[in-house]
Structure formats: C-alpha cells, structure tokens
C-alpha cells in the first residue's frame, strides 16, 4: 500500500535518498542536486537511476532498475489503478491524469467519430488514419486514402501482419477527424492545398490542446494529439505540376514538405539510376558516375532551385546515398565538393594499406585550391607511417634499441597528424641521417614544415626525453666566426614554457629565462620558476634597491642568494 503523503514528503526531503536522473551514472551522487521546483519535487515519487550512463551495458541498467524499484518498493503501490491514482505524482490535486486522459480519449471517440464516419463501427475504426500520419506510402503508391485494410498492406502478403495491424488499431483510437475528411477521400486537392496539407499534416494543434489542458484537464476537451491527414501527390504527374508542387513547398518554407515532394520527385523521375546500377553489376563493370540518364531531369530542375537543391543534398547525405549525391554534384559542376565527399570515404576504411591505396586513388580528383596538395600530403604521410610503424614495431620487439625500452611506445603512429608524427620522429629517431624515412629532417623537408614549427616540436620532444644537451644544441647558431649567442625562432618566454611543462630543472630553465629580453617579463618568469640569480641580477641592472631588499625576504636565510643581495646592497 501507499505510504501517506507526509511520508513521501519526508522521503524526498531527506537528503539520504536520491533524486532521479535519466543519465545518472551513480545515483548516490545526485543527492546534492537541488530540486528545480517544488512541483517536480512532488513528482519524483520514484527513485534511483534506472537508465545508467550511455556507456553502461543494458544488463547493468536492468540491475539498476531492479535495485531502484526494490528500494522504492514500499512507496510504490501495486499496479492497481486505484492505488496509483492517489499517488498524485504530478502534484495535481486532481485524480490520475492518465485516468482523465483515458476518459478524454473515450469521450472524444464518442463525440468525434459520429459525424466524420458515421457508418464505421468502433470495432473497425476509420482505416485511413490508423497509421496516424500522412501516409506517404499509400500516396506514393497511388492508392487512394481511406481504402480498406488491404490497401495499407499492399505488398505485404503476410497475413499475420495484417491481423496484427488491425488489432493494433484497436489500441490507437483516433481522437478527431480532419474536417476535410470527405474531400480527402476523393483526393481532389490543388497543388496549393496539397502543400498546405503537407505542412499541416504532422502538426497537431499544440496550442489548442495546451490551452485545453490548461483548463485543468477538462474531460470533454480534445487532447493535443496530432490529427493525421492524408495527402496525395500521385495525381501530379506532369513535370510542370511536380515542379509547381516543389515551388509551392519552397515558398511555404517548410523543409519537411520540401523533402516530401523531393522524395516523390526522386521516385518518379530517376528510375534510370537503379536500373543502370543493376546493369553495371550484372555486366561486372564499374559504375560510371557520369550520368546521362534520366536523373538529369531532376538535377537540371534543381539547379535553378537552390533551396530545394540544398534540401535534396541534405536528404541524400542523411540517407547515405553517396552515389546519387556524387552524381548530382558532378552534374552541377560542383567538382570540388564531389572530390571532398569522395575523399571523406577514407574514414570508412580501417585497414591502413587499403586506406593508403584509397587515398592514392583520390589524388586524381579535382580538389579546390590547395586541397589537392593537402590530400597528397595525407597520402604521403600515411605511406610513411606504415613504413615507420613496421620498422619500429620490429625494433621494439627485438629490443635492440634502448630508447624503445626506456620509453615504450604507447600507441601506433598510424593515422596520427603530421606534427604528432614529427614529434614521434624527434623522440625516437632524432639523430638519424636525412636519408631515412623516419628522420625528423627528412620529414621536415618532405612536408615543408616551417622552421618555427619544427623547432617547437623538436624542443618539446627532446625536453620530454630530458636530453638537455640536445635542447642546448638547438639554440646554438653558428656563424663564420664560430659559436655566437643563443638564438630561437620561438620567443624565449615560450621556450621556458615548453621546458617547464616538461619539468626541466631550475638550472636549465634559468639559462633560458635569462634570455628573455623584456625585463619585466623576465623577472616575472624568474620569480615563478625560482631563478633567484636572474631576479637579483635584473634588479641590480635596474638599480632597484627597494625591490632587491624586498626580494631578500623571499630567499632562504643564509643562502648564497641572500649573501649576494647583501653584498649588492652594501656596495652602493
């Protein structure tokens, strides 16, 4: 039996129980969650997260469900209607809404069925609307709406299905009929009316329903449930009529209606395509994407109808009709888009060798701008990664190279971006001669990597290895006089940043902090990284006694730094 309402309140207000969430991984955790509003607080009669996170298995979810249900067991009444009517889960003072909803449905049936279809009994309700939708199926097949059951299951010889369908119907009573039911039967709509119906077809009258529901579930009102209405496009057979339909749909700004008309046009205008594909398969020849078949009709008309065209492209994309889409783009002369679309297919190829070959085949496509070069690079990179991967895997297994044992590879280098590959090469193959595929210098040259980019990557890689000699060597620029001062294509501030992120020791950092030219910035960095000498020297050069004295407090008592500051301060 139900607990009293007071108990229920208590249950929900005490924080040891949890609010319900659909996407809650761990229901313990939602305890803190404040309730969005008092009304919904009452509504949370059930408890426990039943849905689990997305990643969790269904099994786990089921378990959770059980757990959750068990926990709320005492609160939940037996399934009996009377019991849960008193639950008042919605916070409504009235009786069960579902009960009233049922009543509503029943009353609607009684009220509405009579005038629309007076001759049909409740046992065999109006068939035309049983599918509760704008039955495109029937209309595209050219069946008149409101026919008998067989009309709907045309093509379905399975008797069981038909029976199932009719039994379902009993459970989905219609609420009300479109006022224009009779007209629907003779399917005598003009293009304008058809488009209008296409638009309305799916649309319930949410507002009207809402308002009614607003009036405290008055049982004699209609519910906000959609009114299925039939539309037939079949009678628009001439191209002109079809295009008129399309233009009207576009003018109505209803994407759904536009797509509906386009699907109709596609079905009635491009039969040639599938036939042609069939022939190609039969003759075992490659299907030529350059069309000279009847889809041309549709394509030609779409060209001057940009809005419809975009809908068509989107529909084909969503429906994964790649071939037709490519054909369309080519017919429209949008070769660059077509090329990208074809290139994109590489993502569906898992095997790296097949992927590489596919990329190679893409090189002949007509890309726009620099894209062709980028695809070329993509191909070259993958080709190279395959070689490096094979060699390194072998080297790692054989255990000959120390670096692979000290820093085992965490993942394969296949399909990584170029810079990641460069980093990898700087990490494992830094000192290789320029002739090998894995040499960083070779990678740099092949892919025309900028000096700054190369420097940044190499620096990070060598710092990661804590190879400070290599790091140091990177900054030494030679001129004809021999070694000169340290140079970097990257600001020293950034250099310090990279080194620090790779946990460089203070003495290494110090060297580069000292090279930051801006004094303020230098002091800031030096303080951050505890490079005392630099701070002291900078203040000395700035002749800032006050700051120096201030800084004295920050260094360790009796340290060399303190001594140095004391010396400086007493010198002047």
């Amino acid at each position, binding site marked *: 039996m139900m607990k009293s309402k007071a108990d229920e309140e208590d249950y929900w*207000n005490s924080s040891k129980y949890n609010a319900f*969430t659909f996407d809650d991984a*761990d229901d*313990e*955790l939602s305890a803190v*969650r*404040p309730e*969005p509003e008092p009304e*919904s607080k009452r*509504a949370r*009669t*059930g408890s*426990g997260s039943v*849905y689990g996170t997305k990643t969790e298995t269904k099994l786990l*979810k*089921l378990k959770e469900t059980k757990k959750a249900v068990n926990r*709320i067991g005492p609160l939940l009444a037996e399934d009996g209607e009377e019991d849960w009517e008193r639950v008042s889960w919605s916070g409504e003072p009235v009786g069960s*809404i*579902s009960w009233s*909803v049922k009543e509503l449905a029943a009353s609607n049936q009684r009220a509405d069925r009579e005038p629309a279809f007076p001759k049909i009994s409740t046992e065999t309700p109006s068939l035309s609307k049983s599918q*509760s*939708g704008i039955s495109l199926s029937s209309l595209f097949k050219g069946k008149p709406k409101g026919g008998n059951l067989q009309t709907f299951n045309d093509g*379905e010889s399975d008797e069981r*299905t038909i029976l*199932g369908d009719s039994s*379902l119907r009993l459970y*989905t009573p219609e609420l009300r009929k479109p006022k224009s039911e009779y007209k629907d039967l003779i399917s005598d709509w003009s293009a304008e009316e058809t488009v209008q119906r296409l*638009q*309305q077809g*799916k*649309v*319930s009258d*949410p*507002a*009207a*329903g*809402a308002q009614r*529901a607003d009036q405290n*579930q008055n049982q004699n009102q209609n*519910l906000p*449930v959609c009114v299925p209405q039939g539309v037939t496009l079949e009678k628009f057979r001439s191209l002109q009529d079809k295009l008129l339909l399309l233009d009207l749909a576009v003018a109505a700004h*209803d*994407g*759904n209606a*536009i*797509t*509906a008309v386009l699907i109709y046009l596609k079905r009635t205008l491009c039969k040639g395509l599938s036939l042609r594909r069939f022939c190609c398969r039969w003759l075992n020849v490659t299907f030529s994407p350059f069309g000279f078949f009847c889809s041309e009709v549709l394509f030609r008309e779409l060209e001057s109808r940009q*809005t419809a065209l975009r809908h068509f*492209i989107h529909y084909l994309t*969503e429906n994964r009709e790649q071939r037709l889409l490519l054909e369309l783009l080519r017919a429209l002369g949008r070769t660059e888009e077509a090329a*990208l679309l074809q*290139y*994109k297919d590489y*993502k569906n190829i898992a095997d790296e060798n097949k992927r590489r070959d596919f990329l190679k085949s893409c090189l002949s496509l007509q890309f726009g701008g620099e*894209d062709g070069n*980028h695809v070329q690079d*993509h191909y070259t990179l993958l080709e190279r990664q395959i070689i490096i991967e094979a060699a390194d895997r072998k080297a790692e297994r054989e255990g000959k190279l120390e670096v692979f044992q000290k820093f085992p590879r965490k993942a394969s280098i296949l399909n990584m*971006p170029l*810079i990641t590959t460069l980093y990898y090469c700087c990490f494992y193959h830094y000192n290789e001669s320029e002739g090998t595929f894995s040499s960083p210098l070779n990678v740099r040259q092949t*892919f025309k990597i900028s000096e700054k980019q190369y420097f940044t990557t190499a620096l990070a890689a060598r710092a990661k290895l804590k190879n400070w000699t290599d790091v140091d060597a990177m900054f030494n620029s030679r001129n004809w006089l021999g070694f000169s001062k340290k140079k970097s294509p990257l600001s020293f501030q950034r250099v310090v940043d990279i080194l620090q992120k790779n946990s460089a020791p203070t003495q290494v950092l110090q060297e580069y902090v000292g090279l930051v030219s801006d004094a303020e910035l230098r002091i800031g960095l030096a303080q951050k990284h505890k490079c005392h000498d630099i701070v002291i020297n900078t203040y000395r050069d700035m002749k800032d006694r006050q700051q120096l004295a201030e800084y004295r407090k920050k260094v360790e008592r009796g340290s060399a730094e303190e001594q140095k500051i004391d010396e400086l301060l007493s010198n002047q």
Partner: protein
Amino acid sequence: MAHSARRDSPELPDLSLLKRLVRDQLIYLLEQLPGKKDLFIDSDLMSPLDRIANVSTLKQHEVDKLYKVEHKPIVSISDQICFLIRPRIQTVKWICDVVNADKAVGKFRRYKIIFTPQKFYACEAVLEEQGVFGDVTTDEWAFYLLPLDEDIISLELPEFFRDNFLAGDQRWVRTAGSALHLLHSLFGPFSKVYGIGRCSKMTYESWREQVEQGEQKARHAEIGNVFLIDRDVDFVTPLCSQVVYEGLVDDIFRIKCGCVEFGPEVTSSDKSIKVMLNSQDKVFNEIRNEHFSNVFGFLSQKARNLQTAYDKRRGMDIQQMKTFVSEELKGLKQEHRLLSLHISASESIMKKKTKQDFQELLKTEHCLLEGFEIRECISFIEEHINRQISMIESLRLLCLLSVTENGLLPKDFKSLKAQYLQSYGADHLLTFSNLRQLGLLVEQQPGETLTVMESKVGKLVNDRAAVKLTDAFSSLAKKSHFRALSKKLNLIPKSEEDYDLRVPRDMAYIFSGAYIPLSCKIIEQVLERDGWTGLEEVTRLINGHEFAVTGADPKSKSDARRIILVMFLGGCTFSEISALRFLGKEKGYKFIVVTTAITNSSRLLEALLDNNI
C-alpha cells in the same frame, strides 16, 4: 547588480505549465499501447525527459524496461516495444532492422514509434522502403519546449544549428513556429514581434499561419513582445571565451539540460556529482551572472554569513536549539553544501585557466575584437596551432579572427590552414569546407564583386576618376562588417582600464568590459527605438531580413509589454542570457530566452566538424 537598476520589473509567467502539458501528452501516448512494454529512448532525449517525468511515471503506464537507442540488435523480450526518438533517418533505419530481424525469426511484437517533437516524411519513407510500414504504428509527441529555468526555455534541438545554417535544410522552421505558437496561446497574445534573420522571418511566417488557422481565445497577455534572432546574425559573441560564472561553468564542465556534472577534481573525492544549476540554487543564483573575478569575493562573504548563522547555536537553550534545528539547520546545511561545491568549482576553474594561459588568450581575443595588433594575434594563434593545443580552441581563434576581420588575407589563410591540418590531421579539410560554407572561416576575396561595380562605374566616368573610385572601393572592402557594426553600435567601450566589473555600466561586463555582445545590443536598440528606424546601416551590414510587426490587439497590460520573449534560432550562450538579464534590470524589462539549444564556442564548432554524419 548595477546601482541604477530599476526595481519594478514585472513578474515572469509560470513556465512549469509547459512541463505538465508535455508530461500529460506523453502519458496519453504511452497509454495508446496498453499492457507491458519496453521503451527505447534516444540518448539525447534522456536528459530532457528526466526534467519532466521520472521512472515511476513511466512504470505507472506499464513501461517495463527502459533501454537506450544504441543502433545495435536488441535484447528485449517484451512483445510490445515503444521507441521514443528524434525524427532521424538513421534511427528509423535501425528500428526497421529490429522489426525485420524479428520477422525473419517469426517473432511477433507490436511496435510503436513516438517521434518528438514531430515526425518527418523522410522517416516514414524509410519505414515504407524497408517494408515495415504498417507493422509499426507511429505517433508524435509535441515536446517542443523544455523550461530550463524560470527565464530560459530550450527546444533541446542542437541539430537545428547545423541543419538550418550549414545544410540549408528548413525542416525545423515549422517546429520553431509551432513552439512559438504554443507560447503564444499560453502566454499571449503577443502585441509586437521584432526579428532579424532569414530563419526568423520564416519562423514568424510559420507562426502567423498557425495562428490564423487555429482559434485564439481572448485572454490576458502575460508576454507582450517577441524578438526573433538568427544565430548567424552574430557569430562573434558565441566564439568568445565566457567569463561570467554560468558561462564559464558551461565552457569548462558543460551544462547539460540545466544540470552539470562536477568531476572528482571538484568534489575532492573519487565520485562525480550532478547538480542542477538554476534559480532554485540560492548560491548559484547570486553568482551566475557575475564576472568571474567577483565570484570569489562573493563566496567568501557568503561563507562568513553562514558561519555567523551557525554560530547562533552557541548559548541557546534546549528549546531554542530545537527550533533552530527544525527550522534553520536544514536550510543552512543545504546552503553550506552548495557553497562548498561552488567554491571548489571556482577553484577548479582557476586551476584550469591558469594552466592554459587564460590571460594571454583573453588578451588575444580582446585585440581581435578591437582590431588591434592583428599580426601579434595571428602569431599567437599560429603558436597555439604549432603546439597542438586544443583543436577546438585553435579553430575558435581562427574563426574569431576571420569573422572580426571579414576574412583572412589569402597568404595567412593558406599558411594557417596548412599548419592546422599538419597539427590536427588532414581530415579537417572537411571542417574547413564546412566553415567556409557557413562564412565562419573564409579567405578575403580580392574584391571580386567590386570589380564588377568598378567596371560599371568606370564606363561612366573618365579613367582618373575610376582610379580614385577603385581606391575608395578597396578601402571599403578591407573594412570588415564587424568593425563597421562595432563602430556603429559602440560595441567596444572606450577606456577599458577603469571598467569596474563589480558595478557594471553596460552589457560589456560579461566580456570583462571589452565588448558588448552584438546580438544583445541589437535587441536593446530595437526595443529602445520600438523598431528598426535609424538602424538601416546596421541591418544592411548584417544582411537584412529585419522586421517589426504590431499585432491587432495592443490592449494588453503594460506589465506584459515589459516581458520580452527572445527566441534565438540556432542557439544562444549563457553569457548572452546574463547580458539580457542585466539589460532587463537596467530598463525594467524581464526577458524570457527561448533557444533551440544552449550553445557555446565548443558546441558551435563541434557541430561543424565532419564526424557527425
């Protein structure tokens, strides 16, 4: 907040009504399939559904087991299956597979698909093509609007943005129109509708038609004015880093359907916590619109107050203590918990932001907004890319550069694109193609359209004048639309130094005083002028499609006139909502924001990556 705030703001209508309506409708639909049934729910419908119903609601209507739609063979043994899904072709195809698999083994079940918020012909066409039309009944659940808070309503349709603006598919226009219609019939009649953008115009039309077709009962208006705005009117604002608390939390932790999950780094345990973030959370409600720099001060003040309240216990006698425990303690404890949660969240934000050189990033953004030191900005972005720091962040900066500068110089475009592909992978070719199509990341065209103009003008005047004209045109061409708009609308406040973020003087405070969000500024201007008069230049730069329509019945109460429904088509950010709340306080309005989804820079750009189709 601001000292000049008006205190006579009107009361907001009760939006929870919307929840009750959809819940009732869902129940009705479930009862259309009597008997025990298993329910499969689209994963992105779970959170929205959670906000309006719960398990026991479903159980009461004989839902046996709940599953998530996973596009895999199902394990359900129930003989009735109900699918609650968004109208997507791929999901329907999966359902067809399920049905056909059952048929193949001779298993008989009843299937029902509930599409929400509506069904599409394309989905039904799939049912027909796959030979299951007739085996499956379909229905619609008109779940258009989910109130996330007392002044935020979401359509929870993140795909609206990509479908409408990138693909140019208008399937959601009618949906938006219906959503507006629902609000109109519940809280209207509206007396004035303003709007800007192509989609706004179409939505308005769709709404108007629906109003004409339906009957409207005379009622007292609770919402007087409506403003419709397309996301593509202003891409700059959602591309900026958010620095108001709620926006920052969204940027870092991602608020989902008004709920955020704080990970172990915030909870300082090994568990995560889910927290509802809305006006019911008293602590959050006071800091959500604050610039982040004020949040710490506020929280510590709050902590002190709390301590004082706790301290009252001392020296109480038993009776007093009893009253204290029964009346105050629970509230204090709740506040305590929330307070510590927001403090740790702020700490975590601070940690994350210092790690990624947030100051430098903000400086770059501000320079871009001001059009100042662009070369330095470009090299900052370049370094960002070179170091392979966050792929989305780099893309965001590139887009911000392009949108504010009206495209990149061909040389820069070529080099940055090449480096981007090198750092993050060649497959971003497709991302770049999408961004170009949307106009978010483009190459400056060396005056293509101008040449046509020039040659026309050139024919009319002599050569010398033509040369002069060409100069004039090319200087015009270099001027970005954003710069011109920014100048026209004073989006960049002068003298950034003395901007007191604690006492904001305008909406720029949401971006540290550096920039007034364009979208909100337009709304402010139009409301002030009661139309678009005087904003002709602005609308021309935005590419038009503006409108202002007065309804037939302007007799509504003056209070309703000051409640303004702002509908963002394509998403809006929390920062924009904060800015509107500020504007409302200043001018004595109350805004209700309706958005197709809450967005931010990451969501905006992720929608344009090419891995989701």
